[in-house]
């Protein structure tokens, strides 16, 4: 029994971090954006564009950390387009988000053509398990260097939103634009800045994909992970720390299929491969109710009004 349970457990735990890190960054970025009262479906496009930018930056400069910077910049710029355009009158942020998603993926495919073949320097893992004799443990504990950064951002975001004047402004703009205006705040400016900051954070998720795991650029790299991460924010009830646990849960679910097949449990691998998507559906079904607004949801979100 131990031959099966332990390896699967280690693979799922390791996979939770390996596969879950992009989810973490995108959901944190979306969490910040939505706290300011706006939805950015364009983060899927941000994820694809920033992973291309990260790879390109690392390839051209020779340094993966310059790639990480490029990813944040690309993410902030694309999210900025969304932020500015949604500030115009009668622009629907859902429709705009879909347009931004297409713009981001299209740009990434176009600019990323010459980047499919080359190899770029990737981020070196943090080897937590180097003292362990088990190869499985070593593999599970060679941590993506961006993951601790993600945990820090989650903690910082939670603290900032709850305890600082800055966090209060973002939440007020998200909960009641009228109250914010009465305070003399520019709702549009706050939302645009929050959207851009969210884009920069989501850009780190792109860098994690192309510079660490799997560590190369191609056009199907994201395959919808950005959209799953956006759904995660609802599951996490707009709380940054809950985004962390939710991302790990989804990462682990993604690792379950291959892990079970590798130990010879291969009955229903289509089912196991579908676990992340089934989980998303389940969350959305459980989360939606026609009778009241979702607990924790910023009331300015266009889906709430």
């Amino acid at each position, binding site marked *: 029994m131990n031959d099966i349970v332990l*390896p699967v457990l*280690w*693979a799922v735990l*390791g*996979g939770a971090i*390996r*596969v879950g890190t992009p989810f973490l960054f995108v959901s944190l970025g979306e969490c910040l954006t939505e706290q300011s009262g706006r939805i950015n479906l364009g983060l899927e496009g941000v994820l694809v564009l920033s992973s291309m930018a990260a790879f390109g930056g690392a390839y051209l400069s020779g340094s993966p950390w310059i790639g990480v910077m490029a990813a944040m910049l690309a993410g902030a710029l694309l999210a900025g387009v969304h932020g500015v355009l949604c500030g115009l009158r009668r622009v629907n942020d859902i429709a705009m988000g879909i347009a931004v998603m297409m713009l981001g993926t299209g740009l990434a*495919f176009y600019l990323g*053509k010459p980047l*499919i*073949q080359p*190899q770029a320097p990737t981020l070196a893992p943090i080897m937590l398990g180097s003292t362990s004799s088990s*190869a*499985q443990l070593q*593999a*599970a504990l060679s941590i993506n260097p961006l993951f601790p950064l993600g945990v820090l951002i989650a903690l910082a975001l939670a603290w900032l939103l709850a305890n600082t004047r800055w966090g209060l402004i973002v939440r007020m703009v998200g909960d009641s634009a009228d109250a914010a205006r009465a305070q003399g705040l520019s709702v549009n400016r706050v939302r645009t800045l929050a959207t851009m900051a969210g884009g920069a954070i989501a850009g780190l998720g792109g860098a994690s*994909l192309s510079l660490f*795991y*799997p*560590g*190369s650029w*191609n*056009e*199907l*790299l994201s*395959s919808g*992970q950005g959209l799953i991460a956006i759904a995660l924010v609802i599951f996490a009830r707009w709380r940054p720390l809950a985004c962390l646990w939710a991302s790990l849960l989804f990462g682990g679910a*993604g*690792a379950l*299929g*291959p*892990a079970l*097949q*590798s*130990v*010879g449990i*291969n*009955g229903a*691998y*289509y089912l196991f*491969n579908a676990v992340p998507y089934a989980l998303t559906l389940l969350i959305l079904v459980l989360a939606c109710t026609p009778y009241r607004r979702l607990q924790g949801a910023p009331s300015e979100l266009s889906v709430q009004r």
Partner: protein
Amino acid sequence: MEHKQWNRRQWIQGTGAAGASLLAGAWPLGAQAQSPITIGVIYVGPRDDYGYNQAHAEATAELKKVPGIKVVEEENVPETQAVQKTMQGMISQDGATLLFPTSFGYFDPHMIAIAGKNPNVRFSHCGGLWTAAKHPANTGSYFGYIDEGQYLNGVIAGHMSKSKKIGFIAAKPIPQVLQNINAFTLGARSVDPKITTTVIFTGDWSMPVKEAEATNSLADQGVDVFTMHVDGPKVVVETAAKRGKFVCGYHANQSKLAPAAYLTGAEWNWTSAMNAIIDAARTGKPHPNFIRGGLKAGFIKTSPYGSMVPEAARKNADAVKAKMIAGQFDIFTGELKDNTGKIVIPKGQAFKQTAIELESMNYLVEGVIGKI
């Protein structure tokens, strides 16, 4: 009354047809045997994916150098209605008279539907199971016996594996993929019958994160030689190399990606197949409907051995390869059991590469850990 009026559309049709017949009449004067031709090549993914699409793109690049051949290409065309639009566009706008839709899912219903509407255009699909009874005569298919290459991969893997566990990352359980998994396993077990192949199906042709995850889980289980059947092997090759494991390539030569881990590989070489089909079209010969070939016909080739492959392994693989080229080697021979213990090929029976039964394979052989 109105039928007596000349309308603009009729006029264009009439003069257009006259012009076309003039042109057609003028052609043979210019080039007697080899008339110029426009061909269209359609890829499901990017042309430079180090894999399936790149193999076709490399052959197409060779064709472009031939005088009289004009090539139009489109990449990232999904296996949906979209490919029908691409095909019709290439025919109507670019004047293509021979199309190479290269992805498995383009065949039925998409290529068949467009072929019915354009009886004067020739279609050559890569990998489809063309049958004269079911499919129009202006369509056809070509493919290579790449399982020969995977068998040789297996022989080398069998020599190199210390843990006696080897791994196969596969996309979907379709016959061609199963044939490769089985050939790889049989090749390795010809060296050491204790070897097992663990297979992981990722579910689709290109799933980079899942492919990396599959490679990692297998490496955790002690698998030390990998191969794959996915569209872009880059992720598997790089991930295996990062874990310090060996890898056998597929589709194209990936040795540049991981020189220290790349043992050998099974590569396509589509130039000769495509040339045969194009020559027939240019000289007006009947459309070759069913083209198949392996190492002997030059449809497939093997990557040069990595420097870590020992002499004994090279000799063994080279000997099998020589037999394959001479036509004296059958990969699937009886008695062959599947991995549930059922006999799938009875004693005394051997399938030649040309055997059509192999193209509908639906089992995994003994020694494979996995399920369809």
